[in-house]
């Protein structure tokens, strides 16, 4: 008894340490530790996050008050600049929508399934873990808002991380630069796939890329969609350094597109749809339809004030611009030429009755001779802008002669 009394402090210390080591071992052993320690975490998060929310609210409110009501210097100039930027982006959007349509058609031929982000929820970052070894953040949305674990968290610039734990009104998000995080990634140009991981020092590396491959610095890194968390094609960052690693793999360092230390608002991907890619209704025309339109017939009086061009079998509406060629893909022979599209953006081929006719989708990939409507490249000259529905809707006035800008080359050191 005397010995116990004399070494009581040490005995208690050993007992407390033993209990904690035991608890730690149990947590490590279990793959799912959310239940065993849930109560402690709920208490801790419940004690700390309300203060963080209040502070964030005060900070945001004062910032908004100042910037939205008092500090409006330079807003007009910025507005003009943004309008010009929007115009440029509209033009680029037209070009990209055509590329996307072509990609959809090809995907449909290959029976690809695509993942679409169909629903997101904006959330505010209210705090962090406070530890160097736990690179994670807390957001102000929890299970009462519909957040679930393993949901992807992104921003407009790129991916951020995934939801790890969900509480009543807050959630813990594991950042991609944490050493316990991981995800599938693919290099944009070389299409090499690897595993994205964080390091203890907070860097992001791409692992499992064979060392005999060539990866240039500056190449964009995208999500591959293979992890089941991030939809395919989201920007991760760009390669900053490539060096030989261990075990025949390259050591590829990636700079995240998002500044993970300065996150204020994020988007939680709450719903991802997976659907078969469908070709655009107007993308491909069958040769038989076009031949049918060329058959002689009695043209009726057009019901719309649109100008009919019977020779080319196309209508020209008020918002029509651009030149459309129809080529057979097998021979590349030009079989016809349409001089525009309607305001709806559909490649409206005029039928025998002179009415605008929308080209139906192909019956199948094997249907006989297929012709594809392609647009002449913008380098051919002027007046090739605003050929799509978006442009027509967005700009009610006829578009002036503008040259569609060429897509900017991918910067070597910048992902944007």
């Amino acid at each position, binding site marked *: 008894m005397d010995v116990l009394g004399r070494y009581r402090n040490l005995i208690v*210390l050993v007992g407390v340490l033993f209990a904690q080591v035991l608890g730690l071992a149990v947590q490590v052993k279990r793959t799912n530790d959310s239940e065993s320690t849930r109560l402690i975490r709920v208490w801790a998060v419940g004690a700390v996050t309300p203060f963080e929310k209040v502070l964030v609210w005060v900070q945001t409110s004062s910032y908004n008050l100042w910037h939205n009501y008092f500090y409006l210097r330079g807003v007009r100039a910025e507005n003009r600049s943004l309008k010009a930027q929007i115009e440029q982006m509209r033009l680029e959007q037209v070009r990209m929508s055509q590329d996307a349509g072509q990609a959809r058609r090809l995907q449909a031929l290959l029976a690809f399934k695509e993942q679409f982000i169909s629903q997101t929820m904006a959330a505010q970052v209210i705090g962090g873990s*406070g*530890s160097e070894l736990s690179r*994670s953040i807390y957001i102000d949305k929890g299970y009462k808002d519909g957040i679930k674990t393993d949901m992807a968290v992104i921003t407009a610039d790129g991916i951020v991380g995934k939801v790890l734990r969900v509480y009543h009104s807050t959630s813990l998000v594991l950042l991609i630069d944490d050493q316990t995080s991981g995800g599938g990634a693919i290099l944009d140009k070389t299409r090499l796939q690897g595993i994205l991981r964080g390091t203890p020092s907070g860097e992001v590396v791409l692992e499992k890329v064979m060392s005999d491959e060539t990866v240039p610095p500056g190449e964009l890194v995208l999500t591959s969609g293979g992890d089941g968390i991030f939809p395919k094609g989201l920007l991760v960052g760009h390669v900053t350094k490539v060096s030989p690693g261990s075990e025949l793999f390259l050591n590829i360092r990636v700079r995240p597109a998002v500044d993970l230390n300065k996150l204020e608002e994020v988007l939680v991907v709450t719903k991802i749809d997976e659907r078969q890619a469908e070709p655009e209704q107007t993308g491909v025309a069958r040769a038989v339809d076009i031949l049918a339109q060329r058959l002689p017939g009695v043209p009726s009086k057009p019901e719309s004030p649109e100008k009919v061009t019977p020779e080319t079998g196309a209508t020209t509406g008020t918002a029509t611009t651009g030149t459309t060629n129809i080529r057979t893909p097998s021979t590349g022979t030009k079989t016809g030429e349409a001089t525009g599209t309607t305001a709806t953006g559909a490649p409206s081929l005029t039928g025998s009755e002179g009415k605008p006719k929308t080209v139906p989708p192909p019956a199948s990939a094997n249907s006989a001779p297929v012709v594809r409507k392609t647009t002449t490249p913008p380098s051919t000259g002027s007046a090739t802008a605003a050929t799509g529905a978006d442009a027509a809707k967005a700009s009610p006035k006829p578009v002036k002669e503008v040259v569609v800008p060429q897509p900017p080359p991918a910067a070597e050191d910048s992902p944007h």
Partner: protein
Amino acid sequence: MFPNLHPPPRIAPTNVAITYTSGEQVEVYRFNLPATILIPLFAIFLQAWLSRRFPFFTIFDLPLLVVIGFATARRNPLAGLFTGGLIGILQDALTHLPIGLYGISKTVVGFGASSLGIKLDVENAGARFLLTIFFYVVHEVVYFMIARGLVGLRMAWSWPHEILSGVANAMLGILVFMLLDRVKQRT
């Protein structure tokens, strides 16, 4: 939180040898209940909040400074280890890592700081500075061993980094201890 678990007498009764420093007996202090609860919570909150806003703040460990401050003021090993353990577990709960990493480290520090506080005069700034550096390194060593050995985390040990962090924490610790001096009460 445990002010009366094992209240050390002003004059050593049996097992703990109280030394005399500066010609005076070692003082023992206590903290009232609100301070005992709110100060650690506030330290954990500040650690999480400031680390997010200012990433460099992750080199500091405010809860550790509070553990050392409480332990050296109370000079009660049991109170020190329980306070350290609870603060560490709360700190663990905010991370995504298993609970116990900070808990074990701060239990050791709380016990050690209170045991050392019995033997040394930790009232002056110089002693506090050195004590904080020492216990910061002890904390990091214990954390490193557990994180690598038990949890399997990949960690790299860097003495320069740890020493510099220890100095930074010691400088901040002097301020924290001064604030704690204002709320501690003589028994």
